[in-house]
């Protein structure tokens, strides 16, 4: 499963990130709610239980995170409230 994974940059609409039922009432920042939802969704996947390999959470100039994900996990994450896009990571060059 790890071999099939690649790094994606997941862009989120932070205004649409809401607490799930059991986290309601917690005054968590949006990115913590996002992580909660993401773990919840991925843990529901029966076939792919490999742990999430989170690289970064982006909080200031963009909203989202970078993680190593399988294509199945990417599909699952599309169910996240506020999900906008998943862009595969790529290499840029010095000029």
């Amino acid at each position, binding site marked *: 499963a790890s071999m099939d994974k690649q790094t994606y*940059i997941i862009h989120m609409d932070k*205004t649409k990130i809401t607490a799930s039922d059991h986290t309601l009432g917690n005054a968590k920042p949006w990115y913590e709610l996002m992580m909660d939802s993401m773990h919840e969704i991925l843990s529901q996947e029966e076939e792919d239980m490999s742990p999430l390999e989170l690289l*970064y959470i982006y*909080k*200031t*100039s963009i909203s989202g995170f970078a993680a190593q994900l399988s294509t199945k996990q990417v599909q699952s994450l599309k169910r996240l409230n506020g999900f906008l*896009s998943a862009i595969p990571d*790529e290499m840029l060059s*010095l*000029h």
Partner: protein
Amino acid sequence: ITHTPQFLGLHLGEGLWNAPTLASDVIIGIVDTGIWPEHVSFKDSSISQVPSRWKGTCEEGTKFSVANCNKKLIGARAFYKGYETIVGRINETMDYRSPRDFNGHGTHTASTAAGNLVHNANFLGMAKGLASGMSYTSRIAAYKACWRRGCTNSDLLAAIDRAVADGVDVLSLSLGGFSKPYYSDNIAIATFGAVQNGVFVSCSAGNSGPFSSSVSNAAPWIMTVAASYIDRSFPTTVKLGNGKTFEGSSLYSGKRTKQLPLVYASTAGGQLAQFCINDSLVPKLVKGKIVACEQGINSRAEKEEQVKNAGGAGMLLLNAEIYGEELLADSHTLPATSLGASAGKAIKNYVRLNKNPTASIMFRGTVYGNIAPVMAAFSSRGPSLVGRDVIKPDITAPGVNILAAWPPKTIPSLLKNDKRSILFNIISGTSMSCPHVSGLAALLKSIHKDWSPAAIKSALMTTAYVLNSKRAPIADIASNSSKAATPFAFGSGHVNPKCASDPGLIYDITSEDYLNYLCSLNYNSTQIALLSRGNFTCPNNVFLQPGDLNYPSFAVLLDQNASNTSVTYKRTVTNVGTPMSTYVVQVDEPNGVSVTVEPKCLKFENLGEKLSYNVRFNALRRTKSSTNFSFGCLIWMSEFYTVRSPIAVTW
């Protein structure tokens, strides 16, 4: 950097380099290969305490500790998680897993933007002088996100995100990739967030010129920087056995060669010997001779390596036709020089027609006073593939043969057996021009603390100049300097810091304006949300067209087949010059287009006052021989100010 400050009109104790301007606290974030903190360019003498607003830090890592930061280098972080997932764990014999710079590029760009004063800086005696960054009292924060094989987007985004949170005022990115729509371009997305937070973002345009539409980092909120030659060169004279001489360029610091046998292609080796690729040169044919190598297939350093390994006594690097008379100076370890395409052609003919061709190379050191600026052939060109309604690149700054700080443990040449240790290196690229503009933006920010990133950008663009030191149009070296460069090469022109500090009028742009521009591109709500981060809805009942973005230049798209088509764009200018001032418009019409401006006169009574005008571009009848582009400009002139906007028409 030595000499470029003077070339740009910056002098110690005067104008933008006077005490009040320099006392201001501006923080420049450099996203690059890290930094060599002990370098004399980053000493913190004469610099005040770190401002309390600064939230950054110096991260510990391999051969890097908190103690490496000071009042000059106030932040240093490293981002490698994305890189290591793609390339594997960083080999610490090849790089430092910390903000320390192994490559040299980040140290060079950081010192160009904001390096402190260093007397008698030089590269092996060349380009000697007082070195300083463009804004030599500004603070530096180094965000290392580029490693041996490149920079991953995930690391770059982490660096940008962190830099903005830390509180940088200016971000400098001398890197890039292929251009793509803004909603799928991670750098465009992240830098939009930076600009929303008041950060000025300067990016290199790329080194893929002179090919058309090669520009990268072309989002309108980014300052996209092209590269030029300054008036300094490192000339060589190549003399052939037939008496003909050619001028080249080299940073070789040794003596001239004797007149030696000259070999090329089949007289130097086997297949592809003309490119001096791996194992193509035959030592018995090359030993003790000068080898001519054509540009292409492998790098310039690799060609030198091959010539050295085969026992060559010297090398002539011949430009491919497309790069014209481009003359980049390389820090060779054997007598070698680059030569333009026309010299290359003559030399290849000479070798073919003579049984015993010979050549010598003389190295003439550092020479000043060339006609300048001239556009570098390698500098990437517009029009932008993703936003034809904005002229890109935006501006030009020095980017050829730039001396700046270098880690003493990093060899200057990329050659395997180079043992030289230097403190300053001379390299070329839009990577080098970009931090010039970052530093200049910091200077403007220090004077005009309330100016938005777009206002600073406008000031730099509308005051840029388009004539060289001989009062002739800036030439393009890709055309052998026979043709004037166009706005698709130099944008609004060559940066002019003194005028930019007092531009008279500015074209300001808010975050909402940029988002309306994206709406006018028919982006859907998801695409808009990617950039706005979710708090913007396109207005319903408003006519939006991309050309109405309040940009300081005009990119006009006209239909080739329809006669009498026209477009009208609106602009709003803010008076930042003198309170009571009158501006009159002057237009240099692009070929095949009539331009009408209403009103033709703008009368301001107060500072900060905004006035709008409409400009109508009307297509005239065109001939079949017409090119796809034509260029002009629109200038608002007052008693004290000239506010110039280039016009580029694409048919």
